[in-house]
């Protein structure tokens, strides 16, 4: 089996991927609920606040994915950057400071992979992924040390992050989205996208590929960090981290949304809404008492379809 690049990319395949994902989900839900009525209940009962919260978090992180993959750079450490962002939020006194610090610290967090990639061609997929493991241990150090809440008695828990209204989070996301759409219209944005065609192309355009590679990674990291901060600040209760649960998994959902949305900021928004809805369906299934693994597989299958859509968009499979 080989993959052959299409002469012209075929955007229709994103639609096929979305339909395929929907078919998979329907099949899974029907299989596990066993009757149409319960399946319908699993699909239709929606808690608007919950959906909005998951959507906003996934959508912000998906922008990080778009920024990176659109330039052909593989930042897959969104989970870790989100953890760093959430830590920064916990350390802040108000929501505005939290967002600023989250962006700052997650930029610093991705600085090493960015510099290594730009100057020494070290594979950024490996470094960003490994750093997301490091992020968990770093977070545990802070949970157990400087950010520990003494009022929580013997329990090892951080202090609470400031509260962020869902509406404020939505406005912030809209600004971020508009900013990125606008960025891609500028000359710098064009160069960022050119990077996906190869470093030589950027060099030929008279720019330094190193600068743009580093900029891509730094921007991507900053946005993922903001996503982590939004996640912890919009919780209805328990806006703290515990030793046991540092990572929330939304980083990976953001990555899936970016791919499923065809690496376009608006596509990613649509895909994030879809993933948020899937997450709600998964929650409904869990509440019905179905195994949690099924629920997780739902969201996981969306990621597989997103990647498949991307591959089919660019390549044609030859079975030989």
């Amino acid at each position: 089996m080989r993959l052959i690049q299409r002469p012209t990319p075929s955007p229709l395949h994103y639609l096929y991927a979305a339909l395929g994902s929907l078919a998979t989900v329907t099949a899974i839900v029907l299989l596990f609920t066993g009757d149409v009525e319960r399946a319908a209940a699993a699909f239709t009962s929606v808690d608007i606040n919950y959906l909005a919260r998951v959507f906003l978090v996934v959508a912000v992180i998906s922008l990080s994915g778009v920024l990176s993959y659109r330039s052909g750079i593989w930042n897959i450490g969104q989970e870790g950057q989100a953890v760093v962002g959430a830590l920064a939020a916990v350390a802040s006194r108000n929501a505005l400071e939290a967002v600023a610090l989250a962006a700052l610290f997650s930029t610093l967090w991705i600085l090493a992979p960015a510099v290594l990639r730009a100057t020494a061609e070290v594979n950024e997929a490996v470094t960003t992924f490994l750093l997301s493991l490091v992020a968990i241990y770093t977070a545990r150090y802070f949970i157990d040390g400087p950010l520990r809440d003494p009022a929580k008695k013997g329990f090892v828990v951080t202090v609470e992050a400031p509260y962020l209204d869902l509406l404020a989070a939505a406005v912030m996301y809209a600004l971020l989205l508009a900013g990125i759409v606008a960025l891609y219209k500028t000359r710098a944005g064009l160069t960022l996208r050119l990077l996906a065609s190869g470093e030589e192309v950027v060099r030929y355009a008279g720019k330094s590929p190193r600068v743009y590679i580093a900029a891509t990674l730094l921007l991507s990291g900053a946005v993922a960090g903001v996503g982590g901060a939004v996640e912890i600040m919009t919780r209805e209760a328990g806006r703290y981290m515990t030793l046991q649960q540092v990572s929330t998994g939304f980083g990976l959902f953001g990555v899936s949304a970016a791919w499923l949305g065809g690496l376009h900021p608006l596509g990613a928004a649509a895909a994030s809404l879809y993933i948020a809805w899937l997450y709600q369906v998964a929650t409904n299934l869990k509440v019905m008492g179905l195994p949690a693994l099924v629920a997780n597989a739902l969201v996981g299958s969306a990621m597989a379809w997103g990647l498949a859509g991307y591959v089919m968009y660019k390549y044609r499979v030859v079975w030989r």
Partner: protein
Amino acid sequence: MATSRRDWLKTVASFAVGAALGAGGTYAALQSIKTAVEKTATQTSATAASPTEAPKTAAGLPVMRIHFIYVGPIGDYGWTHAHEQGRRFLQKTLCPDPKKWCIVETSYTESVPEDQAYTYIKRALSNGAHMVFTTSYGFMDGTKQAASESPDRFFAHCSGFFKTPDEWARLRNFAEYFIDLYEAYYLNGLVAGRMTKTNKLGYVAAFPKLPEIIRHMNAFLIGAREVNPNVSMEVVGIGEWYSPDKARKAATSLIEAGADVLAFTEDSPTVLQVAEEQQKAGRKVWSFSHYSDMSQYGPDAHLTGQVVNWGPLYLEMAIRAYLSWISGDLSIWSEWPPERPRDYWWSMKNAYAGYDYRKNPADIITPLNPAVPDDVKTYVEKRRREVIEGVWDPFTGPVKDIRGNVRVPDRSRLSKDDLYNMDWYVEGYVKEPA
């Protein structure tokens, strides 16, 4: 056509994801078929809070719906599995025959992320639950919030605390509960101290800085040094509740460092399995059960161990809530038991009768291995009786910490708060656990 490195990466990544999902999907399918077969209770959709509107049994008793929220998957052993056993005990006891009489209907949600407890509790309430149990520390604030918003339902949260007496007085429909195991660890320590030939003990801890685990380790070491003052103990932290790989690595390194009795606080039987492999190879290495009876994983190496049956405690709380619910008198729930209303802290003392968890559901320790000498058995039984009667506690002074400072003065004991928030290590560790 030549494929570039990056294209390769993309292709390989998509196939890897596909393969992982395929494997996960198959496992999930098998698991849920198993669950579907085991599951008999079905869910109805009434949302009434009052007993007059609730569905009735044939005997005319209203049926109270109780929902459990678990932090992990149920699996075959460990924390969530133990709570699931407790739920089944409750269901079986208060619903012996769904056709004749049955006053509870239980359901559960597994693998709920700690930050989303509130959402899941709200869902359970809108699905008609009258009472909700949440079983992870991280669920505490979400549960308290739901309790203050729904004063007509009952809530109980495992392993938390009341921040202030005011909060306790305000949340009258909310209880905290826990079953503590440090006394069982102390008895295990007595056995370990006499069984070790190298005078080196090993301990595999999920999080060596959690107060609960510090309490376990300290009690274990105090027991061992009570019968053998030459004993020292080394601790390896693995940073996860469930990670058989890391537990195996930790246990192996402890054995290589000379330890021949291994205790642990984490969610898998790996350490016991490692000890069993050593026994098979002819080396006397011992270990224990933790949380559920794990003796099947290491019949030779298994000395004893602590088990938890949440069933009796769930039964106690559910009966109080039920009586309070049907009578409309909240004090039956909120002011009892008189010594610690709505703050249940059970331990070995609540296992008054019998020394076998198979006969006495409240017992928290498994029978001793026949390889344990008789005089040790007698001594363990004596100490166990003293703990149950309340005349002895592992943390009875003088107890010194690792730096030699006296932490518990002579003939004093620790308060519940001191035990709950323990952040110091007793004498006898090789080095301070990190």
